[in-house]
């Protein structure tokens, strides 16, 4: 994919909304367009986390292995969202597996490349961290709500 097209796609992704042009150039330097077909894994739990993905289309399920109880899907990620932040935080290993439940188009960002650039330019690094913190905060909020088991038998809801 041409750099020009990549820039256009990245500029339109909500995660990078409002990113200054010179920072966008930095991101483009670590980016590549990728495609996953329905039924393939993007990452496996425990593997080294050296990438993250900006999802353009399709749906990905985050899974965890419960051994004898099988595999549980705990969340899906879709268009406009970000998949993975383990690339930023030591020990840089995935905590979940990610499985494409439909064909997926995404931009893969090289975690090591981006980490290096964050170290070299702390303003850029702070901006990236702030954006990821917002994603984490929303996910944490959603996870808390999921833990409440709102639709269980104790839930108060019109019937």
């Amino acid at each position, binding site marked *: 994919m041409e750099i020009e097209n990549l820039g256009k796609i990245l500029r339109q992704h909500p995660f990078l909304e409002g990113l200054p042009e010179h920072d966008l150039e930095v991101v483009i330097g670590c980016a590549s367009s990728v495609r996953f077909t329905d039924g393939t894994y993007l990452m496996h739990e425990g593997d080294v986390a050296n990438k993250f993905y900006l999802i353009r289309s399709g*749906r990905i*399920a*985050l*899974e965890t292995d419960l051994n004898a109880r*099988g*595999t*549980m*899907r*705990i*969340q*899906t990620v*879709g*268009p*406009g*969202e970000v998949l993975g932040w383990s690339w930023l935080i030591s020990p840089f290993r995935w905590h979940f597996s990610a499985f494409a*439940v*439909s064909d997926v188009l995404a931009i893969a960002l090289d975690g090591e490349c981006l980490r290096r650039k964050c170290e070299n330019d702390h303003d850029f690094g702070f901006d990236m961290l702030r954006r990821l913190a917002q994603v984490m905060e929303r996910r944490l*909020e*959603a996870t808390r*709500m*999921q833990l*409440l*088991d*709102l*639709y*269980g*038998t104790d*839930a*108060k*809801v*019109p*019937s």
Partner: protein
Amino acid sequence: MIVEDTDAPAIVEEPPRALNDPMVVRPVNIRKVIWETDDTFTLNLDVGSLGDRFVFHPGQFNMLYVFGLGEAAISISSNAAQTRALSHTIHRVGVVTTGLAQLKRGDAIGLRGPFGTGWPLSAARGKDVCIVAGGIGLAPLRPVMYALLEERTAYERIILLYGARSPLDLLYRVELESWANENQVEVLVTVDRGDSSWKGYIGVVTNLFSYIKLDARATVAYVCGPETMMKYTIDELERRGLPEDQVYLSMERNMKCAVGFCGHCQFGPEFICKSGPVYALPRVRFLLDKREI
């Protein structure tokens, strides 16, 4: 200190009132029992004994009486345009609903109603409609879907965001599919937990807002589900710029008399059985974060 928003709009559409004496229980027969999930079922009632037709507004509820056990307030889940059919979808959680769950075709129950306000459909005419339902909260919104689809061209986009506990807990699966496929409704369904056979969304219902674009000024939202879910939904709607007077929600408290006498369903200055269960958000906003209420 609690400050009431006295300027907040009330639901202005006049809903149908209970037939005859609202305290008199009238017997009705069960025409059909449909088990929607392991613990949720729909009772289709024979309205013949009620004068052959039963008029209600989407969002209203009836008091259903299991002889010898007691009454429970249950939202009506059928099509208001079909006055010869009356359905209630019921989550088996307590003594009365467990009693209802044990009944079968031909058995009789008592009925009072309809009670309460309904969803203000006129507020949505010519606009986009965003319906957000959680769990059994889809049941009181199903009549809204029917009403919107009866006059599909009177509304712009219809969006249904629906969250349930698991794929096995989804209500009205066949209808969800037909609404999406045949009626130009944007139906997005998510579950809290899924196994590898589930290919849909997983996560809380508010996550679904990431996948739709709302025209905030031209959208009316109807929200029904557990109160916590409704609070998070309100946050999301506000994040997307929806004015609070375009948001309506259905509240739930224990109802006993259903006519505003007993006070069981008191919610701050409101008696939900009478001034609710459907409220414009500004009217109840100040109560939603009060732990003691």
